[in-house]
């Protein structure tokens, strides 16, 4: 297993595009999530008014345990950048035909796929760890008092966040294997959420119970939107088991379809 991961990392670590895209990802992810409060303070100092009675900088965005859900939710948007790297990595293998040579040299097709999936696991884990560290540090800076009980509450959002990123990267890997060309794959990857939104709008009147089962929807349901709670609305402030099961099932389906496709095609 580790050997297969090392093989894929060997391909990536000497690849400039990999460092550029990953650098961009971790940089934007880090700066955006860490600087939210500074950004709001700056808005206020510029004279932005959010209504007389609310001082926006008093809203506990970064207080334990709110910070866990807030930051994992916002971080979820950046996974698209990481998925581009996955698309480039897999479509390169087809355009250079190196997948063919890898198999000739003695990788089985499933080993080839596993090496890619393991990289997805690694990238998702690194992203999760980074988000955790940022949330921990900002939480300690901005929380008025650090209560252990609060810090240890709601940590399951990181599990959900990991699954969210990994599921999406699995989807990107599958699309890359099916389409094999990077440009088209990225376009379809970006449009997939939109296409699903159109489907959702159409089935809403007939079979609304189906909506949570749609793949992109199930992935975004893992970490629900937290912000309405600051305008006194009810939100889901926990990870629902059903969303984990549905997104987990999709993740399995994505990787299994990738396996089937790779198994039966001539490369």
């Amino acid at each position, binding site marked *: 297993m580790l050997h297969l991961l090392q093989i894929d990392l060997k391909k990536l670590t000497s690849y400039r595009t990999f460092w550029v895209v990953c650098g961009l990802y971790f940089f934007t992810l880090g700066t955006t999530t860490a600087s939210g409060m500074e950004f709001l303070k700056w808005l206020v100092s510029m004279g932005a008014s959010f209504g007389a009675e609310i001082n926006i900088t008093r809203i506990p965005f970064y207080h334990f345990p709110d910070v866990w859900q807030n930051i994992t939710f916002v971080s979820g948007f950046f996974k698209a950048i990481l998925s581009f790297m996955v698309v480039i990595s897999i479509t390169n293998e087809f355009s250079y035909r190196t997948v063919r040579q890898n198999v*000739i040299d003695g990788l089985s097709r499933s080993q080839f796929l596993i090496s890619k999936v393991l990289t997805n696991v690694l990238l998702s884990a690194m992203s999760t760890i980074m988000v955790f560290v940022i949330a921990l540090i900002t939480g300690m800076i901005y929380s008025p008092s650090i209560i252990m009980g609060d810090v240890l509450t709601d940590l399951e959002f990181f599990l959900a966040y990991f699954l969210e990123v990994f599921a999406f990267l699995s989807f990107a890997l599958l699309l890359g294997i099916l389409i094999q060309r990077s440009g088209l794959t990225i376009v379809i990857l970006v449009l997939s959420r939109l296409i699903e939104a159109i489907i959702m709008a159409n089935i809403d009147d007939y079979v609304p119970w189906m909506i949570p089962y749609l793949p992109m929807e199930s992935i975004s349901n893992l970490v629900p939107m937290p912000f309405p709670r600051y305008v006194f609305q009810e939100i889901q402030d926990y990870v629902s088991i059903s969303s984990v099961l549905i997104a987990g099932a999709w993740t399995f389906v994505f990787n299994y379809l990738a396996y089937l496709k790779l198994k039966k095609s001539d490369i």
Partner: protein
Amino acid sequence: MKAVLQIENLTKNFGRLCAVNKMNLKVEAGQVFGMLGPNGSGKTTTLGMLMSVINPSSGSFKWFGEEATHETRKKIGAVLEHPIFYPYLTGQKNLELTAMIKGATKDQIAEVLQLVELTDRRNDKYKTYSLGMKQRLAIASALLNDPLVLILDEPTNGLDPMGIAEIRELIKKIASDGRTIILASHLLDEVQKVCTHFAVLKKGNMVYSGPVEDVNNGSETVEVNAEGDISEVLSAFDGVSAVNRENGFYEVKLKDGIKSKDLNKFLFEQGVTASHLVTKKRSLEKQFLEILAESK
């Protein structure tokens, strides 16, 4: 002798096109096996199936008497059609990657680089290599992990004459270690020089297979010249089956078992002194074209 490769009824259809049709073939240890055939006759497709990158439509094959797995392939070095590497990696890094996949040691990398004379350029990116250098790197990569079998699909494609000669020497050297080589090529001269056995494919059908030495068996052809018109004298010899005039020489086809020295003796007895008498080696090229023509 132990069969390194045994192919049974191997077939590949691309839609309606039958690229390889019920092929049966046996390659034994130590053979240098040439695969010949016009463009599109199914050589690369066959080799692709043997390396499990193309799924056969039907039929089967065995390497070393066993069903092929990815572990088997680690003991087979193969370059199909053209060199395939990561363009952004250096030659050295590309080989390191292959070595990781095959489970070869790092010392072997320096060894094979030396062998194909790429040591100086090993730290340059693959995409900056010339075609010939790419070919050499591909051969180096195929040689990693001491393969028992080497599969080369037009390995001299794009090489300069010196490169071609070097690859020929390399193939001979590798073969002399007792390793088996399967070589697909259009350069029949090359095949004749290095191969012990060959097969001819035509539109997916194997129309011939046998040892290369058989090419030289059979009837001899002798080129003769002497002063004056000797065609009548030549035709009078019992051992002659045909006489042609070609390029100012008489081309005399002898019957089976008759040698050029018999003809020489006969001419001498008839009082004709030959000013030119050469036994022509039958070329594989000629035989190849004959086989293709016959199999219409």
